[in-house]
């Protein structure tokens, strides 16, 4: 039945001959219609972005708002999105209630050393994997790649027992040394090094350039974007590390920010504004580094690496 109904529908229009003026008029109309349509689409796109970005950023905006709120203002039944009498006192109190500056310093030392160390060890290893020939190269590379499959939680207990037996607990080295290399970094650098012709290495060698000098003088300057990406990514991840620092640090002298701010959590429920101010303070470094290094990160991580 439905089919037969459909068959009845036919185009009612008949093609007539159109004069030139009519044609131009039609073109103008279509153009303005298309422009309006495009404008409407862009408008819709911007609106949709505003809504989604607001949802995504809501937790952060909320945190900033609470951090500036006097604690009395928080405890009302009204919807209090913006502080009526913004104050800096929460930030000051957060700094004095726990040694937040010390935690920040610790995190900077830890994340900085991890980042630097990973760049060094990963460049060296990637250099060997891309330019040198040696026995077991393929197997060793497979082994390195296989480490990516092992979740950190599968090793964390034994690692904790190891460093405990070595008497390394509560030191900077226990925070840093286990993270001094990464399979992902080796893989990323190797991807970049493989794009260079082997003749680059051979001619440098003929000119009497040693391997280490080749790495420092030629490879590193040529792979700045990969190093930048790796640095941003590693630093942020190290800064945000939680489980390992929680297990291996015990004193205020060694605690990192992520563990330190959870100490603000346990003081008392009246100090919510103070705690959030502390959270905002420790978020600032990682967000700043992310915003500054974002372009670098995207270029280094995704150029070529993503293509199927």
């Amino acid at each position, binding site marked *: 039945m439905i089919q037969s109904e459909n068959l009845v529908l036919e185009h009612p229009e008949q093609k007539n001959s159109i004069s030139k003026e009519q044609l131009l008029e039609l073109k103008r109309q279509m153009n303005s219609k298309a422009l309006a349509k495009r404008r409407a689409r862009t408008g819709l*796109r911007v609106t949709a*972005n505003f809504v*989604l*970005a607001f949802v*995504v950023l809501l*937790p952060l905006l*909320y*945190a900033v708002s609470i951090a500036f709120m006097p604690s009395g203002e*928080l*405890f009302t039944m009204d*919807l209090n*999105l913006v502080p009526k009498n913004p104050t800096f006192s929460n930030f000051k109190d957060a700094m004095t209630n726990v040694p937040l500056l010390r935690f920040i310093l610790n995190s900077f030392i830890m994340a900085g050393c991890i980042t630097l160390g990973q760049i060094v*060890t990963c460049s*060296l*290893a990637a*250099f*060997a*994997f891309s330019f*040198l020939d*040696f*026995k077991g190269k393929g197997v060793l590379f497979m082994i*390195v790649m296989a*480490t990516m*499959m*092992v*979740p*950190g*939680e*599968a090793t*964390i*207990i*034994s690692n904790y*027992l*190891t460093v*405990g037996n070595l008497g390394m607990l509560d030191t900077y080295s226990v925070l840093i*040394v*286990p993270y*001094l*290399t990464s399979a992902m970094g*080796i893989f990323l650098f190797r991807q970049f090094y493989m794009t260079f012709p082997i003749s680059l290495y051979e001619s440098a060698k003929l000119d009497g350039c040693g*391997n280490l000098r080749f790495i420092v003088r030629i490879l590193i300057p040529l792979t700045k974007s990969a190093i930048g990406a790796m640095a941003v990514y590693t630093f942020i991840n190290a800064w*945000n590390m*939680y*489980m390992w620092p929680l297990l291996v640090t015990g004193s205020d002298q060694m605690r990192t920010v*992520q*563990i330190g*701010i959870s100490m603000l*959590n346990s003081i008392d429920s009246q100090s*919510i504004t103070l*705690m959030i101010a502390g*959270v905002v303070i*420790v*978020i600032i470094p*990682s*967000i700043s580094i992310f915003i500054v290094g974002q372009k670098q990160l*995207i270029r280094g*991580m*995704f150029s070529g690496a*993503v293509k*199927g």
Partner: protein
Amino acid sequence: MNTGKKKKINLAPYGYLLPCMAVFAVFLFYPFFKTIYLSLYKTNKMGEAKLFVGLGNYTELLSSASFRNSLKVTLIFVVIVVLGSMLLGLIAAVLCNKAFPGIRFFSTAYALPMAIASSSAAMIFQIMLHPSVGIVNKLLGLDINWLNDPKTALYCVAILTAWLNSGINFLYFSAGLGNIDETIYERASVDGASGVQQFFTLTLPGLSPIMFYTLVVNIIQAFQSFGQIKILTEGGPNESTNVIVYSIYRDAFFNYRFGSAAAQSVILFFIVMLITLVMFRIEKKGVKYS
């Protein structure tokens, strides 16, 4: 081959691998095998293997209601986190696919969660979900104790984790969309395909290689979530958020049952490996590379 003249082995290449291999050896290979070894023993409080029990720890775990609950909770958690974070990343990437005024601001906003620590995010969500002063109850006009109710706590930590993981997914999907040839859309438009049709017939298949990679990474990452659960719920209420990683932490560092915790680590490792392998199997069939 061997003519008696021994070629001198050049040790230099191994020297360049030494720093990274040393770290891997001490902090990855050794602990990995030690974890397997410990999982076959009952340990003392110092974590020393004392009594060989074979697969005893494993059979004990598999017959314990608490561990089976952990498996179930982990599964639900991972599914919500992976779906949520990929969907959010995908929608954001599609919205930022074409140039428009303000695109740089929005791109930064969508990627931003990747820069935020699980602990910081957890503390912010704790206040947002606070029963009396939290913004969620105020906006919705509800009076729910989100994190203390076994029915809602798991969803809360899962949504928080999805939010955290969505940032890097946005970057992956944006890169994937950038690799799709623009001209296929033009041709489709001429053929009269609607935006929705184009999304399902062109965009999604074009994204499938990066989609697959993102899926694998997301699943592995979701299994490892810890900080937010430690801070927000400590596995509770009523073990409703006691994912495997938290259960490992609790068994090892509160109950000092290192053997049982090690066995859980091994089980976690096998689950992750199995899922990865199965996914690579499926990939061979389903993913279209252009």
